[in-house]
């Protein structure tokens, strides 16, 4: 019994002295209000410019926070907006960067991963240097126009992204 207690004591001590790398990870993540504001602003900005678009806002793990199907949009736009956002989240960069990269390297390994798409219109959502999610837009006549609406969504909540 004494021996067992001694062993338990060692275990407890090790637990208390846990290495620094065992500390929990502190995260900021998108709230439902913020995510919806980003998506809705993107839809409305494009609408004001005469474009109907669909939008996805994904979270840190690529999970869907908001999916929004625009009025009279093509049926592929909801999927495409998700994939653009996924690409931006995964690469921590605008999806256009990936589009440019595969122009010179059409056999890029990432093309074989699920949900990666070499198309402009997805932007990472950042808190400082930390990528906490992404927004993807699809439906405007040109990825640059999709991206501009995605940007307007992020700008709308810029003050809260800290």
């Amino acid at each position: 019994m004494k021996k067992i207690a001694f062993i338990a004591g060692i275990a407890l001590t090790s637990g208390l002295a846990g290495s620094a790398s065992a500390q929990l990870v502190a995260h900021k993540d998108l709230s439902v209000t913020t995510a919806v504001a980003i998506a809705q602003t993107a839809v409305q900005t494009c609408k004001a410019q005469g474009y109907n678009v669909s939008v996805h806002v994904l979270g840190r793990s690529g999970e869907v926070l908001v999916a929004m199907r625009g009025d009279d949009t093509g049926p592929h736009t909801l999927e495409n907006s998700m994939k653009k956002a996924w690409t931006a989240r995964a690469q921590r960069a605008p999806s256009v960067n990936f589009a440019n990269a595969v122009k010179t390297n059409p056999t890029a390994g990432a093309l074989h991963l699920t949900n990666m798409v070499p198309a402009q219109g997805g932007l990472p959502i950042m808190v400082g240097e930390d990528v906490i999610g992404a927004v993807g837009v699809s439906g405007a006549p040109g990825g640059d126009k999709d991206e501009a609406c995605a940007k307007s969504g992020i700008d709308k909540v810029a003050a809260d992204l800290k």
Partner: protein
Amino acid sequence: MSKIAFRIAGISLGAAVAFAVAAPADAQLLTHKDLSVAAATAIAMTAIETCKTQGYNVSAHVLGREGQIVVAIRNPAAGFATFENSMKKAYTARTTRAPSGKFAETVKGNPNAAQFFLTNFVAAQGALPIMVGQDTIGAIGISGAPGGDKDEACAQAGIDKVSAELR
């Protein structure tokens, strides 16, 4: 092309044109009202905010006429299963054209109801069909409150918010 084949083709074409011109009345296109993204978002966010006011974090789905997602909102403050569940409740309400709670009532004591063999049916209260008159144009599903009745009340608040537009 042989003369005969040409003649047959000509007859067929002529017949087709005649049919098209004399199309029966029931061949007219359908006229539909459908949810706009603005209306769908208003419904979903009103439901989420109503539940939040009551102390409940919920996720929401608004589905359209074909069960397609119009707006899907995951509430990170709610359990992660709520996202899927809100979709399934909405799907159930859309396809049965009735509150999902009614389906739950119907299958009580019938755990092998045929609908359980279909995708996305769920026997749980918390979703309502979105109606324009007698026409079901979509559904809203809510999940996350402690009780389907509370989910449903928030869904109702969402629909009430845009009731003036639902015509």
